[in-house]
């Protein structure tokens, strides 16, 4: 950092309001800069280059929805009472008048019906929360399928994944706060899952709920998590996430002039500052429109929580759906009723495998997704830095694994709405569940093979285009009588995109210095063969040469 020489020569005889060039703006910026040295930051950060692609803006959507959530959430805290004290409703919503309910429910109704703009803000808060998790999901899919998680960005993938889980926790704690019938049913399921842990389940449930479910403590506790601990954690992780984005620089897609060592795009100042600022208002506008025109979570219809009624069609918000679906798909007996029971008692301890198995499967799924960058790095053995994002087709193994994972999640997700699928498509709920149970295992396998074949076929097509150009549809007869179809050669810019991708081969295992092949290396070779056995190599320069003379 170079400090500009101080332009002021102290002269007590000079008039105090010695004018400098630049008017008020100049004076203000000098004033700030001389006291903070911020010009260095503005220069460095303002010249930061970001590449331009629609899929690079998805993470921004998540950030902006979080800002909307913070703003609307602050408004809601002014009026919400996180208390389960029993009160009698005396607000303006007729069908609940005179009913006993918790202060939390009453204040949520008060926000909806009496606070000016309260219902709008409540709905905007809830829609923004759904959008927050959805945009994180879409952003993660983009990162996954373009391989943007590779070195040096593995840690940032993990941080992002922690954010995804924190967002789900934020969502669930918020969903439970109004203490309405729907969210109470959801909490009951969570209480049941906690109880399902052998030996300590009941104790933990009493600890969490401060006694037997539902108790009088849970709303207050969830509120503390929802507005204090979790938002602080989300903010900290967002800050970390963004610091890493700046440190690593943004990935870009292969294109003319774009290499692993540069970033081609526009600077933050003035282009992206303006674009991102405008985009924030677009996102805010879309969420506002949804909040204004579409009901979300009509707690006045659900009524206050009471442990006895359970409504048909009770579902969690979409992002918890996959967990609800896992519980719905888990059979109570293996091999149908009368088969091996999944819940049994041995020596006064109940083992609820019907709860433990789904929880373990989900936990495993989450850990595998979170650790995927490290798993892939281990398979490829690639220690290089990668700043060029892959086209999904150029990594058929990864894309197929991703498609299988997405399908697995989608089946669980669909299972959470099994009852609505049954009523709306006139099916029997048993067959919906059975089909989804089988799909959970078979559909990912099918998705894997179909995706892999599609990727390889697309790669073949690209190769064809690079070597022989596009078919023009123009048939020409040569003087010798031969007919040929004229092929239009692909232009150089396009070709750059088609030929620049990494080439991996199945690992050849060799003995190490001690002359042995360790088991881990054997395993790596097996996985690597599975990943890279079927592959299309990028067109090499020699091949291009030959094709040109052809």
């Amino acid at each position, binding site marked *: 950092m170079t400090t500009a020489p101080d332009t002021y020569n102290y002269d007590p005889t000079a008039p105090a309001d010695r004018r400098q060039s630049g008017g008020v703006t100049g004076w203000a910026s000098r004033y700030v800069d001389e006291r903070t040295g911020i010009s260095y930051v503005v220069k460095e950060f303002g010249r930061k280059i970001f590449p331009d692609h629609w899929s690079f803006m998805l993470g921004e959507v998540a950030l902006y929805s979080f800002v909307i959530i913070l703003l609307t959430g602050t408004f809601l805290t002014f009026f919400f009472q996180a208390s389960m004290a029993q009160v009698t409703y005396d607000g303006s919503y007729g*069908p*609940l008048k005179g009913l006993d309910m918790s202060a939390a429910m009453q204040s949520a109704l008060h926000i909806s019906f009496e606070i000016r703009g309260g219902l709008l803000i409540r709905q905007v808060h809830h829609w923004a929360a759904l959008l927050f998790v959805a945009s994180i999901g879409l952003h993660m899919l983009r990162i996954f399928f373009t391989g943007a998680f590779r070195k040096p960005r593995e840690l940032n993938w993990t941080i992002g994944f922690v954010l995804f889980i924190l967002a789900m926790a934020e969502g669930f704690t918020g969903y439970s706060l109004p203490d309405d019938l729907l969210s109470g049913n959801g909490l009951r399921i969570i209480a049941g899952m906690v109880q399902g842990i052998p030996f300590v389940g009941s104790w933990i449930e009493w600890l969490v709920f401060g006694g037997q479910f539902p108790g009088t403590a849970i709303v207050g506790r969830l509120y503390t998590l929802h507005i204090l601990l979790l938002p602080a954690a989300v903010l900290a992780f967002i800050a970390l996430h963004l610091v890493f984005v700046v440190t690593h620089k943004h990935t870009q897609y292969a294109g003319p002039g774009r290499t692993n060592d540069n970033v081609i795009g526009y600077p933050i100042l003035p282009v992206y500052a303006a674009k991102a600022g405008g985009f924030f208002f677009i996102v805010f506008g879309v969420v506002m429109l949804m909040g204004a025109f579409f009901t979300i979570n*009509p707690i006045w*219809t659900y009524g206050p929580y009471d442990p006895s009624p359970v409504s048909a*069609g009770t579902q969690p918000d979409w992002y918890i759906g996959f967990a609800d679906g896992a519980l719905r798909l888990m059979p109570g007996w293996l091999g149908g009723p009368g088969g091996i029971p999944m819940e049994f008692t041995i020596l006064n301890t109940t083992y609820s495998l019907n709860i433990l198995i789904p929880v373990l499967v989900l936990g495993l799924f989450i850990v595998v997704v979170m650790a995927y960058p490290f798993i892939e790095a281990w398979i490829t053995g690639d220690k290089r830095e990668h700043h060029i994002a892959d086209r999904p087709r150029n990594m058929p193994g990864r894309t197929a694994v991703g498609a299988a994972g997405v399908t697995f999640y989608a089946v669980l997700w669909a299972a959470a709405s099994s*009852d609505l699928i049954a*009523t709306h498509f006139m099916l029997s*709920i048993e067959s919906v569940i059975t089909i989804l149970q089988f799909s959970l295992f078979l559909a990912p396998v099918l998705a894997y093979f179909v995706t892999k074949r599609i990727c390889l076929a697309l790669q073949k097509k690209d190769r064809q285009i690079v070597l022989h150009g596009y078919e023009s549809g123009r048939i020409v007869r040569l003087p010798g009588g031969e007919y040929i179809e004229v092929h239009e050669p692909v232009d150089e810019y396009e070709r750059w995109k088609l030929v620049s991708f990494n080439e991996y081969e199945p690992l050849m295992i060799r003995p190490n210095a001690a002359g042995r092949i360790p088991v881990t290396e054997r395993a790596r070779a097996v996985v690597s063969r599975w990943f890279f056995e079927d592959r299309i190599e990028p067109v090499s320069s020699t091949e291009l040469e030959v094709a040109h003379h052809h």
Partner: protein
Amino acid sequence: MATMNSDDTKRRKRGRRSPLASVALVLTGLLITGGAYALMTAASPANADVNMASAQSISQGKKLFAANCATCHGLNLAGTSSGPSLIGVGAAAVDFQVGTGRMPLAQDAPQAEVKPPVFDETQTLQMAAYVASISPGPGIPASSNLTLTGDATKGAELFRINCAMCHNVAGAGGALTEGKYAPNLMKTTPAHIYEAMLTGPQNMPVFNDANITPQEKQDIITALKVQNQAAGVGGFDLGSLGPVAEGLFLWIFGLGAIVAFTVWLTAKAN
């Protein structure tokens, strides 16, 4: 128009040649057809002029029953191998099953579907009168029990405790086993809701007057209807289906719109 002030023109501009005549004609036509339609469809069973006790209604009902129902339910209402006995069902069950179009059954399905009724109000009531004359049972509710003057708070609570586990807390309906389902109640008439509670059609349990009193039934109906009117408080209700509809809406329309904006923002000028 100042030049056209002869008597002839003036007369022409009045009466059936007035420029407003066609508008008035269309308006009158619409009012008559619309009014007639409203009268015919809005007429509740209690309004239809049928004396349930008269021998004429019963004999008319008997003819209709013999022609349309006896194949399955038997000429003496004792039922056959293809349909259940109607002994003890009373008039309310007939009015519900026939009035909602569930009977006559269209096909052998997990449960009878609601469809446009085959018989009009009078015919339905005549059949009800006939069935009630042979096998007395719960009768058609008095119209005083169907007004929306009950206690909505109590009704909503009763609905949550007794009905929501199948019909959903908003009355949006829900799935039952083997392809059966609890139907959506949002468009069901007060009389039909009352009769369903009284007679327990299909898979529904019977909520007799000792279980849920007539006053409580009226409370439930009031709550359902008031809740329906209030459903639009927060905007379009997305079918009152809860988080699944909300999630799908968010992913398809919310995130869809935003992705469209990202594509627009990063589009290169041509």
